[in-house]
């Protein structure tokens, strides 16, 4: 299509491939190497430990059931919300939709901090209730329990389910449901026999995604669960950073990989059949007013729940960041600019803001340019084995961030690729995480461009490059912008890989927050709140900017 000559196409595609080879496959191969013994077999001591002690079986089992429970709970809470968004129009819907994007883009570390701020021992609810009723014991005691991180999982997956299911729901032809009603089905029967079966692919797809996210949950469990809980992901980190047992970490990483591939494969199969869009569109124009009192109260109840779940933790975070022992204080913010010998970080904490933003731009540039090349290559349907290359591109998505980070420190700290002290290491890791998202974001828009537009341009005398430059790129503006913001936000909030690769003198914001949260003391706690608030604000601003810019760029609609 775009670049007809295979040589040029492959030449351009070789860049993203080279990137994947060096920064994905090479680290991965090092992990596999580590898990094997000298003679090439599996390391017996590791295996004995793995299967003999029962500890690791428990970790795997825990990873699975906490993810399953999180998924079920999220669905229970989110499906009624999805219905409200798919079927009703109401005042302030746009605001709710904006609110819904917030948890979805919020870094997990901030989520964890926000839940600590709301429901933790020193949290807002306990703080207020104790001073109000003169209690000596906190009312809510869920620190380091499963309830705590289940809540956080529901928090950031709720909007995912609502968005995916509601946009799919609103595309189900209401006439199909009406047809069932006309054929004698009661509203319940019509839901059971028609709506639900049609909705199942979207629900299944969303559930699988939620399960995957929770299965690889890292920051939230590390921070809210405390040392008692360990998922595979957390255990890889502990084995590496705390116990220096690299072979064990590598073996666990391989197990994690196998599970993730399985989940992604399932997801790809489902998505192929259903075409559920991950980047769900706007659903604001397909609905009617809730007419009866029952419908109105149902909508009201769901929206109230949504505010309670999504807004209160973030508000609590902001309030906590300004409240010291004696009321309002700016202390937690001002101390971010200083450091002394007792400090947890090697630099002034505020430097991490600068680091994160710089790394964010770096990761965005790398992911965007490579993503654009890869998407252009993949959009050419005439090419052979497109499905295969598509799958290759998506592989990093199926690899947990912790595994990637672990791979980086075992592979890229000595020749042939020594980046141990390079500032590039973090942006490269982030770009790798963001890269599949960028491709997924660009590809649908690129494929939507009708071939005859390019043919028309060619017949009007444009060279292949000029066609790409003058037709494809302008039509892709919006998708590119969305992809760029996504890449930036992913980088800003990324914690799993950063926990391994960020150097002590160049911490990122999530790393700094984690350091603060994992150490006792009210100043550390307050600084975590302050830093989290800053990260939340930066994230919100970037998405708000994206929204603004996006509104300016009109949707491209192709005349048929």
């Amino acid at each position: 299509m775009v670049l007809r000559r295979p040589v040029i196409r492959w030449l351009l595609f070789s860049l993203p491939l080279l990137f994947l080879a060096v920064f994905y496959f090479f680290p991965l191969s090092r992990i596999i190497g580590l898990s094997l013994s000298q003679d090439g077999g599996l390391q017996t001591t590791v295996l004995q430990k793995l299967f003999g002690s029962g500890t690791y079986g428990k970790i795997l089992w825990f990873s699975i059931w906490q993810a399953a429970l999180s998924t079920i709970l999220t669905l229970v809470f989110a499906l009624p919300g999805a219905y409200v968004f798919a079927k009703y129009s109401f005042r302030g819907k746009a605001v709710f939709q904006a609110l819904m994007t917030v948890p979805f883009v919020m870094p997990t570390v901030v989520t964890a901090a926000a839940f600590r701020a709301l429901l933790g021992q020193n949290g807002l609810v306990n703080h207020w209730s104790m001073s109000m009723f003169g209690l000596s014991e906190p009312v809510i005691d869920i620190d380091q329990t499963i309830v705590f991180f289940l809540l956080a999982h529901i928090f950031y997956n709720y909007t995912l389910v609502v968005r995916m299911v509601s946009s799919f729901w609103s595309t189900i032809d209401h006439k199909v449901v009406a047809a069932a009603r006309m054929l004698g089905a009661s509203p319940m029967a019509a839901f059971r026999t028609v709506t639900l079966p049609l909705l199942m692919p979207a629900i299944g797809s969303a559930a699988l995604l939620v399960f995957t996210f929770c299965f690889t949950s890292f920051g939230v469990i590390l921070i809210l669960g405390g040392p008692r809980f360990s998922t595979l992901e957390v255990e890889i980190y502990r084995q590496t950073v705390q116990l220096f047992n690299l072979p064990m970490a590598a073996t666990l990483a391989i197990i994690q990989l196998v599970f993730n591939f399985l989940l992604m494969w399932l997801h790809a199969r489902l998505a192929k059949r259903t075409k559920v869009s991950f980047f769900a569109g706007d659903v604001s124009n397909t609905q009617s007013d809730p007419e009866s009192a029952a419908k109105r109260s149902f909508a009201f109840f769901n929206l109230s729940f949504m505010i309670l779940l999504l807004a209160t933790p973030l508000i609590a975070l902001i309030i906590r960041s300004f409240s010291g022992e004696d009321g309002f204080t700016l202390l937690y913010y001002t101390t971010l600019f200083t450091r002394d010998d007792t400090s947890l970080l090697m630099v002034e904490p505020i430097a991490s803001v600068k680091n994160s933003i710089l790394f964010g731009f770096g990761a965005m540039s790398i992911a965007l340019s490579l993503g654009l090349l890869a998407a252009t290559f993949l959009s050419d349907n005439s090419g052979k084995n497109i499905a295969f290359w598509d799958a290759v591109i998506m592989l990093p998505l199926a690899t947990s961030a912790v595994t990637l980070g672990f791979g980086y420190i075992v592979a890229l700290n000595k020749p042939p690729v020594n980046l141990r002290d390079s500032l590039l290491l973090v942006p490269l890791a982030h770009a790798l995480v963001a890269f599949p998202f960028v491709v997924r974001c660009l590809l649908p828009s690129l494929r939507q461009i009708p071939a005859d537009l390019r043919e028309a341009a060619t017949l009007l005398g444009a060279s292949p490059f000029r066609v790409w430059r003058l037709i494809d790129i302008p039509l892709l503006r919006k998708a590119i912008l969305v992809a760029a913001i996504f890449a930036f936000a992913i980088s800003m909030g990324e914690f799993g890989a950063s926990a391994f690769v960020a150097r002590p003198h160049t911490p990122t914001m999530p790393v700094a927050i984690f350091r603060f949260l994992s150490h006792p003391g009210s100043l550390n706690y307050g600084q975590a709140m302050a830093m989290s608030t800053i990260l939340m604000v930066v994230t919100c601003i970037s998405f708000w900017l994206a929204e603004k810019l996006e509104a300016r760029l009109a949707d491209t609609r192709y005349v048929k």
Partner: protein
Amino acid sequence: MSTPAKTILKVSDLSRKYREDTILDSVSFSLLYGEILCLLGPSGSGKTSLLRLLAGLDNVETGSVLFENRDIRSTPAHKRQFGMMFQEYALFPHKNVEENIAFGLEMKKMESAAIDKQVTKMLKLVGLEGFGHRNMDELSGGERQRVALARSLAPQPRLLLLDEPLGSLDRTLRDRLTAEIRKILKLLGVTAIFVTHDQHEAFSIADKIGVLHNGRLEQFDRPETVYTTPANIEIARFLGFSNLIRGTVDNSGTFFQSLSGKLRFPVNRAKSSFRPETTLLIRPEGAVFRGVTPGSRIDPFQLCGIVTEKSYLGGGYRVTLLSEDNEFTFTLPLYPQPPEPGETINLTLAPSALVCIDDPAGG
């Protein structure tokens, strides 16, 4: 099947508002057993809204609906035992042909043997034997339409509602299927209400036609009556008539004169109690061309003008002529050959092709 000429459905003063807009404005009509009513109107005229009210998919707020002399306003859609065929069919994408047709029967809790029998019967009725196990995406547009018809007829509905069921098909297929639907409905003696914006479809399927415009039922008559005497100019324009001249009729109601006074034709206006202002419709098929005989106008039914356009239609010609600053279009047979553009033509109009349309609103 013979049905007594009794009223099955009586709709009175049915109105519907959505927010500030009036969708339906006091619609009243009644329908006899076994009749096929066609609701005809442009998009946005309220046809589908009316159908949804009758189906029970929307609630009646103002007006009444009596079905077999019983008020059905509070009966929910699934208990009315009405059938409905939807625009784009609304076939269940997760069920095959057989399962789609069987759905209504399952809802009736029929035994599976009886369901199988009825499904087979329906497949035969619509000419889809052997298609039972096909999925929806393996069917052509016409086949889907047949499945939708079979599905809506299978539970033997007491009233069948059809919402532009042929809307997405091409012309030829539509003509064929319209005839087929009428045949099947008449064979089963089903009372039906068919909604369309296509007059050809309406005329070929209906026993009665109701013309909807801006939510009002402007005319409710036999198809022939609607065609020969449209109730107002809006309907005449909607039916595609373009030979409309404004003018007046003399006191006796026998002579029409155009506003300029240059065109005069004898008419037969029954109700002379109307105001003299009127619009004369000359139906396009109501002119005869007897060869080029230019000369003075003797015959009062003669129309003389200069041909401005002439196009070949297959079975005849469409000829546009200019006469006294008015443009007229007629369909003329192949022989005698009408003159070429620029030449003068002399046409004789059939008295029955001249109709005075009194528009109470327009004056």
